[in-house]
């Protein structure tokens, strides 16, 4: 690539422009090449793999495929796993909504109520990110034990006759949605906190002075001003939740009927070695998320997320 592509124009410096563009190229090239090799090339590799056909000479040996343009693979996986794809987006959507409802008041508390006490505020933030410091898998397993049939929650609910004697929590959709919500709460709370931390309280006072009731103040002033945080929080929760396969796995919170697209990709790739199916599902997931994200970002009017 010619370094003229990186012509520098800003920041007046004594160095000649040609030299400056060399510096820019030197700074960018290693990282960009790295991402091209280990982010872009894998995506191309996925597309190629998704179109492969079984090797006719391998006699059904697992994992043996030839390059082809077998577009039917996509129709096949949608036919076979359509249910899992829809379920993933449904669970991820519910987890995002629950995480938002849980996080907003908490973020408001840390960002606004605790503003006068900086040290307590720092403590509150630390508590929100504390789950990150214990392994993702262990905290999910902890919930599995707590929600298991012998655990406190089920025993208490059954004792109060709020749950039937044959009912379970783990292995059911409710446990998976719960796990997804819990695990991604910090991703929702932190961006909302950042927005609310910068909220100018004089707007809230002005709204009160103009006789808006608290609900009106919230919906017309506070919520719109914190919208950027809500939008990035929703993306940061929805994307990993839709692709997650730990919570829904049957050794964790899920069961036979809760398998999500991530579980199917994992088992096709790593267990049955049906690489084309796993790759086609990955491409479908990626495309669906990119479409959803770009529509969502455009609708909500924040283009600069990075």
């Amino acid at each position, binding site marked *: 690539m010619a370094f003229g592509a990186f012509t520098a124009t*800003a920041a007046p410096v004594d160095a000649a422009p040609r030299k400056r563009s060399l510096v820019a190229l030197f700074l960018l090239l290693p990282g960009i090449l790295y991402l091209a090799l280990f982010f872009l090339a894998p995506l191309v590799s996925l597309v190629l793999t998704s179109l492969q056909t079984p090797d006719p000479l391998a006699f059904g040996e697992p994992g043996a495929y030839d390059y082809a343009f077998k577009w039917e693979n996509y129709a096949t996986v949608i036919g076979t796993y359509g249910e899992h794809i829809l379920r993933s987006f449904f669970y991820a959507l519910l987890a995002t909504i629950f995480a938002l409802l849980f996080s907003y*008041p908490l973020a408001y508390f840390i960002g606004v109520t605790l503003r006068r006490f900086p040290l307590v505020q720092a403590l509150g933030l630390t508590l929100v990110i504390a789950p990150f410091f214990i392994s993702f*898998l*262990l905290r999910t397993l902890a919930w599995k034990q707590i929600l298991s049939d012998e655990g406190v929650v089920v025993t208490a609910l059954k004792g109060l006759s709020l749950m039937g004697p044959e009912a379970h929590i783990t292995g059911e959709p409710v446990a998976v949605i719960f796990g997804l919500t819990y695990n991604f709460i910090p991703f929702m709370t932190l961006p909302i906190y950042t927005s609310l931390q910068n909220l100018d309280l004089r707007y809230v006072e002005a709204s009160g002075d103009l006789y808006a009731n608290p609900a009106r103040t919230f919906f017309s002033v506070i919520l719109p001003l914190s919208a950027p945080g809500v939008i990035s929080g929703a993306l940061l929760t929805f994307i990993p939740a839709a692709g997650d396969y730990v919570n829904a796995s049957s050794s964790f919170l899920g069961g036979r009927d809760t398998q999500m697209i991530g579980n199917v990709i994992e088992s096709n790739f790593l267990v049955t070695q049906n690489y084309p199916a796993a790759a086609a599902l990955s491409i479908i997931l990626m495309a669906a998320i990119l479409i959803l994200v770009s529509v969502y970002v455009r609708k909500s009017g924040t283009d600069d997320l990075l």
Partner: protein
Amino acid sequence: MSRFFSKYLIWIYSILAFLFLLIPIAYTIVFSFNDSRRSNIVWRGFTLDNWTQVCQAQGVCQSFLNSILVGLTATLLATILGTMIAIALVRFRFRFRNSVTLLLFLPMATPEVVLGAGLAAEFLTAGVAKGALTVILAHTMFCISFVVVTVRARVAGLNPALEEAGRDLYASPTQVFLRITLPLLMPGIIAAALLSFALSFDDFIITNFNSGAFVTFPKFLYTAAARGIPAEANVIASAVFFIAIIFVVVSQLTAAARRKRLARE
């Protein structure tokens, strides 16, 4: 009564919410002291044995060391590459700027399972054997974007007058960079490195696709989950938790002290 309630409702809610967030952490720590023989599910009494003989359980310590090794290597690589990009993005105008920004944003917007499966497909096609190397390559990839985001803010907040002063005093460009720019960027670079290490250390989904027989700590947990996690794994996770919390609290207290000092001056 009702006024009192509405005034303190948010306090009550938030304290309950904090407690809720801490439940699985407390559970993991408590069960690291469980006198468990085989499966660490039922409470059988208090013991310190799991803490004093952590490496008794097969594979726990090895997987932990593997995670540390991967985390340090990937952090080093990602921090260097990401910091270079961050400096270029703030200080230089170039033609493919938007494409570069998009290329950095996309890995963060891609589900991990897609990143993991994609790399695994690439390594399969290229005939690269899965192991420590492929895990490090994968972790470096997803850490770069987070480093760029973190360091970029710091570069943007840098006062160019300080570097100009250095140049005015006849410092060479290398001297300006090493003596002025780099030290001023250091807090951002350290934050980025810590974030990278944390992301790498806890990553499971991408690792699972690219590790082969190489076992990191999260992968050990996933494999062990089917037959029961040994209490020693809880010990390691709890120890990591305490170290991280101490780290955060100390850094927040020093930051608060610095703010106070600045306010007084």
